[in-house]
């Protein structure tokens, strides 16, 4: 057994929340820079230029990259030989979020009751996904998610006979529907397989993988590449004002599914696709 104190987890989460909101993950940063060089639309290039200036200002002047500093999604992978001491893991994660959003001057965007809509005023609770694995390490991914893009995400329960063409169709349909609302250039997370909720979780997890890395599964990797080309042919462009940079990347995660089903979830991430990973 290896002991990890909750104080270490609180500090770690706090720092990750702050880092994610001021310094863009390097894969997305590089993606925007490369897109700027390749963008053919003059208005599109101007928007991408603004995004690059924005990243510099955010990092150098300590202003959040986007005012929507997100709902905090946390993926926790716990080795089964880890013992959490000093308190509850869930409370520690939320305390880390609370401190990060206060000390980082980040926006508190969470309402307690979805209908009454009273703000919790500390950006908690986060949404925490746990996975238990072998080993004695604790891996944490913090991914603050803005809702301009979250609102444009979709789940489709396709039929096995829809095959890969059916998947392409619904991904393109979702990206078109998202249009300018999701703050393009976007990152597209796709979950294929599993069940209704599993594919949505896969799509979210896909957004935390660095763009450009590609799936390990050859035919899935090809689907990622085909979809990226097709999405960038839509002409939505930076800010939705036209151009050939609509998506910076398409990441797909898969899982075994039922003989009767082909669930597909599309989680749209804006160009501020924040994700920070730490291993304790």
């Amino acid at each position: 057994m290896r002991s990890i104190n909750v104080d270490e987890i609180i500090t770690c989460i706090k720092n990750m929340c702050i880092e994610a909101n001021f310094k863009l993950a390097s894969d997305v940063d590089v993606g925007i820079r490369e897109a700027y060089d390749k963008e053919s639309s003059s208005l599109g290039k101007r928007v991408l230029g603004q995004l690059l200036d924005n990243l510099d200002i955010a990092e150098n002047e300590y202003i959040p990259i986007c005012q929507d500093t997100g709902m905090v999604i946390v993926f926790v992978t716990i080795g089964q030989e880890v013992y959490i001491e000093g308190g509850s893991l869930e409370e520690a994660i939320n305390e880390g979020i609370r401190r990060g959003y206060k000390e980082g001057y980040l926006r508190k965007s969470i309402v307690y009751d979805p209908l009454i809509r009273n703000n919790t005023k500390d950006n908690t609770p986060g949404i925490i996904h746990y996975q238990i694995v072998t080993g004695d390490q604790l891996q944490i991914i913090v991914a603050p998610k803005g809702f301009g893009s979250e609102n444009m995400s979709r789940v489709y329960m396709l039929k096995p006979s829809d095959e890969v063409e059916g998947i392409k169709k619904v991904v393109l349909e979702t990206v078109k529907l998202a249009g300018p609302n999701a703050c393009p250039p976007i990152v597209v997370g796709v979950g294929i397989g599993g069940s209704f909720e599993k594919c949505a979780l896969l799509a979210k997890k896909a957004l935390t993988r660095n763009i450009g890395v590609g799936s390990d599964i050859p035919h899935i990797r090809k689907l990622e590449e085909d979809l990226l080309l097709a999405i960038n042919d839509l002409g939505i462009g930076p800010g939705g004002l036209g151009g050939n940079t609509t998506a910076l990347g398409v990441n797909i995660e898969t899982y075994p599914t039922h003989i009767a089903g082909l669930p597909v979830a599309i989680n749209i991430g804006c160009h501020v696709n924040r994700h920070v990973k730490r291993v304790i």
Partner: protein
Amino acid sequence: MDKYIKTPLTKEQLTNLNAGDYVYITGIIYSARDAAHKRLYEALMKGEELPFSLKDNIIYYMGPSPARIGQVIGSAGPTTASRMDKYTPRLLDLGLSGMIGKGTRSRELIESMVKNRAIYFAATGGAGALLSKCIKKSKVIAYEDLGTEAIHELYVENFPVIVAIDAQGNNLYEMNAQIS
């Protein structure tokens, strides 16, 4: 084409602004997003007076991150405009002349814009740090309890936007969709 305008935004100024123009705004504008729109709308339904005059004014769909000491405002980029579509025709009827946000608008809203001669500007979503630098003064003038969603009176200088839908109803987003 680059253009420079000063608020208040009169109906006369609007005639020179066309979908696709890159516009720099200087003057007073007001922030309001989801919760503030609901309150404005409910106030109108009850016949109450609004906390600021809509006539010839611009509403910016924005809820900032908190300002640090010495800062005017935190990050301050646009939010998705279509969530305000339900409430906006009523505001346009009362003389609101401009809106700043991001993303598409409903058919009904565009019809109301044309009827009332109003304009919709897109600011770059996710560029909140950059846009905050153009905000020189900020104060909460209503609904302080809403926190980030309170109505702020903002003084902006050369605030960069693009005309997404002009007062004739020309829609830059649709023009692009047709090209692609």
